[in-house]
């Protein structure tokens, strides 16, 4: 391979989402949120002899909602399969999953096509004693079955992602979409949203795919991006060195950001899938479809389009739609009187986010109506942008009414027919004769000195445009 070849990554994602049903996928145990180990178990989810699974109708409902949100074809009939392998976190010796007849097929979210969505049960949690952190080489291992049997939706994309940044951005959209559906907590750090990536690279322009690897254990958005980038770099280095990429499962270590192979006997599986004889097929009835449709909220993609139609810029619309809480705050503010959509969106996405960070602005002291009023004051030129930012600082710190803050602190704008500005401009021109001369000779850049002088004198209350108008008038340019 010659070094000048340019490579293109081809990435597909497999996302496991823990569904926030009340009970587990195939038994009546309630889902666990940090309870003492093995307290949310029953004979069924422990895989005791003689027990049988029964499918959770709520999980199927959530699966259908996910399918609708991702534009999938919803199968009129789908079946569960057994995926057979031995592991101590799998009490039956098989996982009940779906194979060639999943609940949902096809679809698209944003710029990535969906291959399929299926339902399955989560494994239990293994805790290994000893330094290896893995079962082989550990002194002993214990199993907590609380998580075992938690409903999962597995979402598999087509290999449409072309960069780590795109993977991260798209996963953000997926998370927002799932959160708006209310079907999952979608928390990567807590494991309710898990993402594996199938990664290959190929020379730009080549149609055939390269050999792929499967990268696991990227348990945050940041690690997803870093892990994918690391694997792309690893593959590229291999190819440039004239070596080959081996198809294998890889483990990303967030602590060291190193990628290690998981290849071992335990990974050499022939899963021997066959239809689960203990469960009847899932027949998706019209009533089930209607219930799923009725439960659908407005999805981020639709919200984005709607906000753009209101006049919000594309960038702001995406930010408001993808961060549901920002969108909700924006719409609450817009419902009050006064503010126009785009300036308001701009204030929410930039000034407010700069002050509240990742927090939900609804939990801040800034009432949506107060922000709307502030933006309206700016639009009416009753307060300058810079002073409005000062007012916003006050609102974030103490809350309150922006008009009252403007009045109390004397932050109201000067200009706009306000004669008080005229003598101040006059004084500024007199104090900056060089600048005045330059302006007169056509160098408008010099007006900055005049405006700066006026702003100092007025403590920022002057309207810059108005100052410019007065200067031009006085100097006749």
């Amino acid at each position, binding site marked *: 391979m010659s070094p000048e070849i340019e490579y293109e990554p081809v990435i597909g994602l497999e996302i496991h989402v823990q569904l926030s049903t009340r009970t587990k996928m195939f038994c009546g145990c309630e889902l666990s949120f940090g309870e003492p180990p093995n307290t949310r178990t029953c004979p069924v989810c422990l895989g005791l002899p003689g027990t049988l699974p029964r499918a959770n109708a709520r999980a199927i409902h959530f699966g259908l909602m996910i399918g609708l949100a991702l534009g999938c074809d919803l199968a009129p009939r789908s079946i569960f399969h057994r995926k057979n392998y031995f592991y101590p976190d799998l009490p039956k010796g098989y996982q009940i999953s779906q194979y060639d007849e999943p609940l949902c097929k096809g679809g698209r979210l944003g710029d990535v096509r969906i291959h399929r969505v299926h339902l399955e049960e989560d494994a239990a949690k293994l805790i290994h004693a000893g330094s290896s952190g893995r079962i082989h080489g550990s002194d002993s291992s214990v199993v907590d079955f609380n998580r075992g049997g938690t409903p999962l939706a597995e979402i598999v994309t087509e290999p449409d992602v072309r960069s780590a940044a795109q993977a991260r951005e798209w996963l953000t959209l997926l998370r927002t979409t799932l959160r708006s559906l209310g079907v999952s907590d979608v928390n990567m750090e807590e494991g309710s949203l898990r993402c594996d990536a199938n990664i290959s690279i190929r020379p730009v322009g080549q149609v055939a795919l390269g050999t792929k690897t499967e990268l696991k254990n990227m348990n945050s958005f940041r690690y997803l991006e870093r892990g994918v980038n690391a694997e792309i770099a690893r593959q590229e280095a291999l190819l440039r060195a004239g070596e080959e990429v081996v198809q294998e499962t890889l483990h990303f270590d967030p602590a060291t950001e190193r990628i290690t192979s998981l290849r071992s006997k335990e990974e050499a599986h022939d899963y021997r899938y066959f239809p689960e*004889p203990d469960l009847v097929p899932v027949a998706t009835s019209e009533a089930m479809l209607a219930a799923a449709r009725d439960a659908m909220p407005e999805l981020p993609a639709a919200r984005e389009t709607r906000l753009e139609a209101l006049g919000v810029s594309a960038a702001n619309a995406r930010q408001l739609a993808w961060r549901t809480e920002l969108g909700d705050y924006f719409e609450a503010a817009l419902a009050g009187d006064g503010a126009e959509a785009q300036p308001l969106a701009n204030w929410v996405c930039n000034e407010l986010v700069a002050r509240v960070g990742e927090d939900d602005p609804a939990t801040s002291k800034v009432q949506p109506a107060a922000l709307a009023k502030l933006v309206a004051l700016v639009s009416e030129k009753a307060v300058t942008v810079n002073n409005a930012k000062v007012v916003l600082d006050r609102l974030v710190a103490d809350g309150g009414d922006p008009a009252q803050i403007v009045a109390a602190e004397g932050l109201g704008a000067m200009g706009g027919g306000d004669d008080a500005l005229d003598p101040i401009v006059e004084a500024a021109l007199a104090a900056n004769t060089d600048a005045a001369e330059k302006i007169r000779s056509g160098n408008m850049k010099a007006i900055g000195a005049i405006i700066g002088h006026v702003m100092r004198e007025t403590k920022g209350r002057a309207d810059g445009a108005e100052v410019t108008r007065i200067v031009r008038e006085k100097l006749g340019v």
Partner: protein
Amino acid sequence: MTASDLTRLTAVEAVAEIERGDVAPSELFEAYRAAALDEDLNAYLWVAEGPPAQSPPDGAPLAGVPLAVKDLFCTEGVPSQAASKILEGYRPPYTASVVARLAAAGAPLLGKTNQDEFAMGSSNENSAFGPVLNPWDRTRVPGGSSGGSAAAVAAGSAPWALGTDTGGSIRQPAALCGIVGLKPTYGTVSRYGMIAFASSLDQAGPLTRDVSDAALLLRHMVGRDARDSTSVGFPGAVGTPTAERLDGIRLGVPEELVGEGSGVEPGVLAAFNATLELAEELGASVETCRLPHAPHALSAYYVIAPAEASSNLARFDGVRYGLRVEDGGLVGMYTKTRSRGFGAEVKRRIMLGTYSLSSGYYDAYYGRAQRVRTKISADFRAAFENFDFVVTPTSPSVAFELGSKTDDPLAMYLNDFCTVPMSLAGIPAISIPNGLSEGLPTGFQMAGPAFSENRILDAAFALEQAIGFDHSGARSAA
């Protein structure tokens, strides 16, 4: 009544005696408990310490008549081992739905009966706890896999018993022990709590001394169970059989199972033909019918059942319950536990099933076997357009000698030749004793369409009265 008199009552008779107040439930229980403890057929793996603390409520339809239960039914706090070393001493924390249902109806647990390990076998020689002997001849097998249940009922150490049938495991031991065994329509009896062999085939059913007892026990077994999503409600109720005649009943004798080259022993065939003549005397018509794919049933069965078993038995891994043999590491522990815990036949079937589900072989084996299964179901549906019942000898032979087939698995599998097709089709079938050959009982099998249990029981009742089978051979040897 003496204890010996008590244990000669059929269950229906015992219910009547109790209801009249002539017999106390505890008295009946103790008589059977003594018989179960005394029996020397190795039919029981566990016997209750005494009658339940609470006598059955007044009006309980089964009145306290005790029940022997095949070991593979889970019974809370009581050993439930599926006759396997890997589950030796295992006491489940819950009771199988059907056992709980029968207990609530007034049939308390008398004991757990021996069986082939995980219900894999046709002779009961595959039990980890030793073979069961046939009460008619202790040198012979009782059939399997519900051999302990069949032997106990035949010998009078249980009034009736629960068994399970996957490819003939109720009907064949019933035939070999000279009692009645019914495999109900798949799904009519909950499987929850039955330690699974082959999930799509396993079905619980009664083993009883006569047809009336089978109807009574079945009545309180059927019904949808929310814990088994493959279970279905039984249409109507299981009635009490009363028919005396078979007028208008059309019996079909499948050429493929009973015709030339089918391997049915002459003595068994003679008894079968005598029963057909009796049926005609009672008003039935008898004609040859066709089940074109039935000869392939055994092959399909021995792909499907082991495939499901290989998966169902994966949970016996030493991690949570049952036998665990340490070997330093995880894979070693798995290997040693399962190597020591499972018997030879179980291992054979796990390997067969694992192979047939493997990548690259699935379509050729499991996929094809399922297609054969579909064809067999269609064969039966077609036959039932012209016939009320399909009838065959239950087993091609009478009880064979212990050890005579243990070295030849294929010869052993042929025992199920006539019973497996009905299992694959999920339809109900009964075996009733219809005579003796070489002094040993033979069985007559009647199969009908799904949910035709009432019609089957009625016809079987009429035949049973006409046959007048003499059960005493099983008692006199004792």
